[in-house]
């Protein structure tokens, strides 16, 4: 029994490192979500106005919604290519617990998208006239929120990976589930800018993260077993 458990940790690190290596080799997968994030954010001043008061008011929502969409568009990379080349079958058939493998893939996905989005978000915050003292809270909310986006998203991708055109369907399945994270994340940034207490939202974001950490890998594994049949 002990041997199998250490194996499960090995399986996690193997999959995690494999997916990181693959992401490094397909540069576009790393760069595209970031570029998308930057472009969408820069559309807002063009569509609204360059007035810094106006930008300041919409900044939390703009940053959060753009990060959410960028994550959503990158979700397919969790399972799509593995499905197409047959690796996913092999992973499902491995004797390791599937949730562990799925968790490794989600963790790698977050490191290559959500984490990077979080890291460049202060620069975009500045471009939307956010005061520097509020950039910290923006980082914190994204740091707590984007892993949840990857976790919940993995369920959606697992459900649609067998379909030839899963893209728009994936958005329809996943976006409603993202709403609580958007609400707490964006409002925390907004309230911090009004000098209000935001610990509550951060706790709620952390609670959502904990909940999805425990449930999402299992749900995604169950979904994979169904769609791979």
């Amino acid at each position, binding site marked *: 029994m002990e041997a199998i458990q250490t194996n499960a940790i090995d399986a996690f690190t193997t999959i995690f490192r494999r997916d990181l290596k693959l992401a490094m080799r397909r540069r576009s997968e790393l760069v595209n979500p970031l570029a998308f994030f930057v472009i969408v954010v820069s559309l807002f001043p063009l569509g609204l106005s360059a007035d810094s008061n106006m930008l300041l008011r919409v900044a939390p929502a703009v940053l959060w919604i753009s990060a959410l969409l960028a994550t959503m568009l990158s979700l397919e990379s969790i399972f799509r290519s593995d499905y197409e080349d047959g690796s996913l079958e092999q992973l499902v058939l491995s004797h390791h617990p599937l949730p562990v493998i799925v968790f490794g893939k989600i963790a790698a996905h977050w490191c290559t998208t959500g984490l990077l989005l979080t890291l460049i978000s202060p620069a975009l915050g500045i471009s939307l006239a956010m005061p520097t003292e509020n950039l910290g809270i923006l980082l914190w909310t994204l740091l707590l929120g984007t892993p949840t986006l990857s976790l919940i998203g993995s*369920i959606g991708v697992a*459900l*649609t990976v*067998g*379909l030839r055109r*899963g893209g728009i*369907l994936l958005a*329809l*399945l996943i*976006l*409603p*589930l993202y*709403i*609580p994270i958007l*609400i*707490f994340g964006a*409002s925390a940034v907004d309230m911090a800018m009004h000098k209000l207490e935001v610990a509550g939202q951060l706790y*709620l974001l952390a609670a*959502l993260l904990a909940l999805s950490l425990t*449930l999402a890998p299992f*749900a995604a594994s*169950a*979904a994979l077993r*169904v*769609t791979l*049949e």
Partner: protein
Amino acid sequence: MMKFIHRFASPREFFRISGRLLPWLASLTLLLMLIGLYLGLLVAPPDYQQGESYRIMFIHVPSAWMSLFVYTVMAGAAAIGMIWRIKLAHVVAMNSAPIGASFTFLALVTGSLWGKPMWGAWWVWDARLTSELILLFLYLGVMALYAAFEDRRTAQRAAGLLAIVGVVNVPIIHYSVMWWNTLHQGPTVSKLDAPSIHLSMLVPLLVMTVAFTLFYVVVLLMRTRWEIIDQERRSNWVEEFLEQT
């Protein structure tokens, strides 16, 4: 007990028993709806603040309740189908989705009709209406996923899994939207939380709720029967049944 459930859950038994029940249930539904509408539209007094316009509540409130109830039933049936591998449960779950979505849509439309005289606008981002809108998205997701697969078994289980994920999220979404609403708009005048609702209004409301629930059961039975006939069209008993009718 399980034996009994499996027996009833066999398509053939279900078809036989539901066929006997349907006419009775349908008549009862119609009767209760007429009573409810009569009591609600003609007997109940006008509201001292909202006048006659509040009467849409007798449709709006039951539909809103049904939208949540049906979602729960759908997820529950899907879970039963996944755990005990009961075909019929999957059929029930997937046929609940469009009915639930219709109730949700009805709740949204009546809510906006009701909102017009109250708020002066067809749509206000009120917490209840917003939650209802998101619930409609959840229903549409389940239906779209079900429609996307060619293989019926895969479709049932994939969409069922999504319904289960959704049902975990419904309370989270609901409370986050409530919280968001108080944050941005301050507490709005709540429509139902009046200190006490007068008995002459409560009775038609309850009658309508029972009628809506029965209506759901009747439509669900009918849809399930059609699907069973379609699924089992190659088996002997269906051929016998079709020859008789």
